């Protein structure tokens, strides 16, 4: 292969990187809320959970080339719960192919389902202290995640277009709207023990995304996603979630360390949860009727990278649920407004302050103020757009 027509140097200089890149991201939150039960207010598992201090996410990341055909990634999360007990979570661990023909790529293992924009992002990539309400309500505290495979195809167009299909197991807490043992918080019934009888009992997550550089300084990415699979309110019940997402960014032509910039991100999701006739968990003598639980929600966030190391942001969110026989605390109509300010002492640390004005229908308005500190050690991360 290397019949050298011109003498060149052998690639023997100092090696770049190691066989495995190791990184560690630590996030610590501190703050106060007018709601004493902070956990009832914050839907995300990596959100601040109590008045005072929370260690929501201490993440060990590992990645590297496996061989010429695969890359490997893992992120292992350590966190402390409200009682100070340590929890460990294999958040993601997957391989990615590098050399399939036909512009195809396969991912396999445990990973975030490619739905929308924020679902696949790890907490340190979020622009706010907490995850959007609509993601918490529809995907649960840990996001849409699971064991499975994903195939992706990069279209041979001159602009970026990628089509993806993830096939995941439909059970577990990270398949919250599907066969999750915690699904009674949504529909109020005792979960049905459903077996996997066919491909239709798996969770399918298709996604189509495309991007254009509008000008030399502006780029937009749009996407449409769905998550389709069985739920365990009954033997034949299923859930459909649809989403649309947009991300737009302007960055100065003479940006220094990535600043100044302005970005806008929004996602809108709808869920049709087909609840079967089911035995109420509150009262086994009561049977809840067959019904469709309809929920929708959206968030939009605007970030302004004012000057190097300073980002001001604001996020607005709304979630709406149509009423059902079971009054789920999770399916509460709600809106939240969150201004934030982030300062990066360097590329490897950040300090954030965020205020949440949080209104829950029939409960009232709460105010929360959160501070967040983040530190990164080890391998230099590369960030996706």
């Amino acid at each position, binding site marked *: 292969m*290397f019949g050298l*027509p011109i003498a060149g140097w052998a690639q023997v200089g100092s090696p*770049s990187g190691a066989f495995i890149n190791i990184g560690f991201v630590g996030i610590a939150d501190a703050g106060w809320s007018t709601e004493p039960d902070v956990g009832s207010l914050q839907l995300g598992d990596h959100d601040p959970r109590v008045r005072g201090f929370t260690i929501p996410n201490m993440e060990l990341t590992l990645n590297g080339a496996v061989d010429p055909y695969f890359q490997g990634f893992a992120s292992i999360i350590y966190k402390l719960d409200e009682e100070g007990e340590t929890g460990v979570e294999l958040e993601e661990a997957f391989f990615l192919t*590098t050399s399939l023909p036909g512009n195809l790529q396969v991912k396999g293992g445990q990973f975030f389902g490619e739905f929308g924009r924020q679902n696949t992002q790890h907490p340190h990539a979020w622009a706010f202290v907490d995850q959007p309400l609509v993601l918490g309500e529809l995907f649960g505290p840990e996001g849409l995640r699971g064991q499975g495979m994903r195939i992706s195809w*990069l279209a041979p167009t*001159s602009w*970026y277009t990628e089509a993806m299909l993830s096939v995941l197991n439909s059970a577990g807490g990270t398949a919250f709207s599907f066969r999750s043992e915690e699904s009674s918080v949504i529909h109020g019934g005792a979960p049905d023990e459903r077996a996997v009888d066919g491909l239709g009992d798996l969770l399918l997550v298709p996604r189509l995304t495309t991007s254009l550089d509008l000008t030399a300084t502006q780029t937009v990415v749009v996407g449409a996603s769905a998550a389709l699979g069985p739920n365990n309110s009954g033997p034949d019940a299923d859930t459909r979630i649809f989403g649309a997402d947009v991300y737009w*960014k302007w960055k100065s032509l003479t*940006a220094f360390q990535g600043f100044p910039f302005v970005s806008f991100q929004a996602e809108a999701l709808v869920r049709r949860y087909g609840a079967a006739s089911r035995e109420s968990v509150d009262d086994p003598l009561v049977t809840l009727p067959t019904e469709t639980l309809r929920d929708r929600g959206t968030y939009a966030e605007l970030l302004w990278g004012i000057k*190097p190391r300073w980002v001001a942001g604001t996020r607005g969110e709304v979630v709406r649920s149509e009423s059902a026989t079971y009054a789920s605390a999770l399916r509460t109509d709600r809106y939240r407004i969150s201004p934030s300010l982030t300062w990066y002492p360097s590329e490897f640390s950040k300090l954030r302050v965020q205020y949440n004005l949080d209104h829950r229908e029939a409960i009232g308005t709460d105010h929360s103020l959160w501070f967040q500190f983040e530190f990164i050690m080890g391998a230099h991360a590369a960030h996706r757009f």
Partner: protein
Amino acid sequence: MKKLIPKLLSLAWLASWAIAAPVAGQLRVVATTPDLGALAKEIGGDRVDITALAKPTEDPHFVDARPSLIVTLNRADMLIEGGAELEIGWLPALLQGVRNTKIAAGAPGRVSAASGVAMLDVPASLDRSRGDVHALGNPHFMLDPVNVRLIAAEIANHLAQVDAASAEQYRSNLQRFNERLDAKLTEWQAQLAPFRGAKIVTYHRDFVYLAARFNLEVATTLEERPGIAPSPAHVAQVISTMREQNARVILVQPYQNRRTAETVARQTDAVVLDMPQQPGVAQNTDSYFTLMDYLVHTLAGALGQGR
């Protein structure tokens, strides 16, 4: 509506060809930064179609991994990167989705410029309390023509492997380039020779190779440590160092904080000099030689005035 869809599709198809197709038979060479692209153009000549991922005016450490760049890399026949972690914050994220074995690490279509250069500023220990240090050394080596000579040979070598039919052309282009570079280097050295030992100040440590080659001395940098913004105490230190050492020229790139440089310049009777390292930022600097001519001429002019 029925008529509109085929129309749109055919337009889209046309657009995809109009934008994407280089002149028939040309190699699609992608360089991470425009200076590497300009160098590849010298060697590839009319056999190559060059695209640079970073814009000439932006900080090459912080390029956004825009999806359009994935498409560019997906179609590339060759990728030339600076290496030494210059692009570490964005290139790996792009390559993850690129699915192009022609530019995989170790393939003939992948050139890492840093791997053959004698690196400066190689850290003795990997310690980020010293700033964003690069494990392999300072990646801003393109301003030393001797490094450029090495990199040009490496590019020619890879081009000849990827496109063996034109190997002879690459070889003769390289030879012509080297002859011109040797002549130019003598000329540039002569222009800067009167300023041997002169002190310059830079924002980032991005002119150390230029200084080393032309016997200038980087007295201090406005940045406290690589990637760490200057504190007021550090700025005061810079001012006193400049006064002590009689440093009268501050070199800045288009993306760096010119205001800090101007503040310091006012207090030290120095000049702020725009020294864009990438081709095409200053007028008539599109090629490697016109860019270097411009930089050397500009620097010699400013150093001459400061005497």
